[in-house]
């Protein structure tokens, strides 16, 4: 597994396209190391969303890298110098971490201190079997709020960078390449079956997060992926009619609000910020409720944010195509 990871990375120099495989490999690596939730996310993001965005950008910027016309000596020297520095730094790092706790050692400090409470008590304290979810949503719920805000910030940043034309619903313009749509009848029909399945699956992941791998973030990404598939097959204009970007923007903010307000409500009912135990008379039910609600908030923001970002990119790509 690790050998593949290395082989993979070196060939990244050759092919930009393959970063998707890299995502898959690192995700399988995560499964091998028991991090199923992370693998879930990495698969959806590293192998799904990231290459897709990359592709749309490549569509705008052009596919081929311009190689330096003449092999300049100075550039070569710089390259060698950088490689040497890297090797030295890497060697130093390896030396520097020689006395780290051994890999997989159950006695390592990381396994001993805080962790024990999570593993031994979270099933009773929170009442859900997936410890990752309980740590994510309850013990360290505030980090997750931060995470949602990061996506929100990114979506806002992307919107700020691109023109606001996205929100102006133009009339369904005549597609530039009409026959291209007919080319893909098989694809479209299959996708027609698949898209509802994907969305359904997203909901399953959303609400099953307490018991198995999954949760708001993963569900949001899958939902977004379904919509993105639709967009790719039917074109941006049609997708924008199905889901209005303006609505998405509101939803994106709404998700953050749901999360934040859960915190405020728990504050008002006498606990600390994001203390779900006070939400219901029984603390465990309160925790359940809290986690359910905030996961929903996460899911909404992530899905809306991702779709918004994708729309913004493909809008950019299409308008560029129209200009040419």
């Amino acid at each position: 597994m690790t050998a593949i990871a290395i082989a993979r990375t070196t060939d990244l120099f050759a092919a930009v396209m393959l970063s998707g495989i890299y995502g898959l490999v690192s995700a399988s690596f995560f499964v091998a190391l028991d991090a199923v939730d992370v693998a879930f996310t990495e698969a959806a993001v590293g192998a799904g969303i990231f290459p897709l965005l990359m592709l749309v950008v490549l569509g705008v910027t052009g596919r081929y890298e311009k190689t330096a016309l003449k092999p300049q000596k100075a550039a070569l020297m710089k390259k060698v110098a950088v490689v040497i520095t890297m090797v030295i730094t890497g060697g130093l790092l390896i030396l520097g971490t020689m006395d780290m706790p051994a890999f997989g050692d159950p006695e390592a400090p990381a396994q001993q201190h805080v962790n024990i409470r999570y593993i031994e008590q979270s099933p009773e304290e929170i009442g859900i079997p997936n410890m990752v979810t309980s740590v994510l949503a309850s013990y360290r719920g505030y980090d997750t709020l931060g995470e949602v805000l990061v996506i929100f910030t990114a979506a806002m940043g992307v919107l700020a960078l691109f023109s606001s034309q996205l929100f102006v619903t133009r009339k369904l313009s005549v597609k530039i390449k009409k026959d291209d749509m007919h080319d893909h009848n098989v694809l479209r029909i299959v996708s027609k079956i698949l898209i509802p399945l994907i969305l359904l699956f997203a909901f399953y992941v959303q609400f099953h997060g307490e018991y198995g791998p999954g949760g708001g973030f993963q569900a949001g990404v899958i939902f977004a992926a379904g919509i993105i598939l639709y967009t790719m097959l039917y074109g941006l204009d049609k997708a924008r009619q199905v889901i209005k970007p303006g609505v998405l923007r509101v939803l994106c903010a709404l998700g953050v609000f749901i999360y934040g307000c859960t915190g405020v409500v728990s504050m008002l009912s006498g606990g600390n910020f994001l203390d779900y135990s006070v939400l219901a008379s029984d603390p465990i039910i309160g925790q359940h409720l809290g986690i359910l609600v905030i996961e929903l908030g996460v899911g909404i923001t992530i899905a809306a944010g991702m779709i918004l970002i994708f729309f913004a990119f493909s809008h950019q790509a299409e308008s560029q195509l129209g200009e040419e």
Partner: protein
Amino acid sequence: MLIMLAVVLLTVMVMALARALLGPSIYDRILAVNLFGTKTVLLIAVMGFLFGRPDFLDIALVYALINFISIIGVLRYFEYSDSKRIEGEP
């Protein structure tokens, strides 16, 4: 049995990788990526059984889904650039 299966899958993944590296045309690479993706799906499923926690099949399902979507995405992208080129030619 399962271990053998996993080993075989890994070998094939390496093969697909090699093709993705060598692949003269971009389509070869896409094909290799696709193959790689489905093999990963299988590998995850098998690994789930190997570790005795087969309820992680969700991940395999997501992989299959993401794989499909990225293939479509890649194809769409090349159509974009192809049609650009064809329009430019005449």
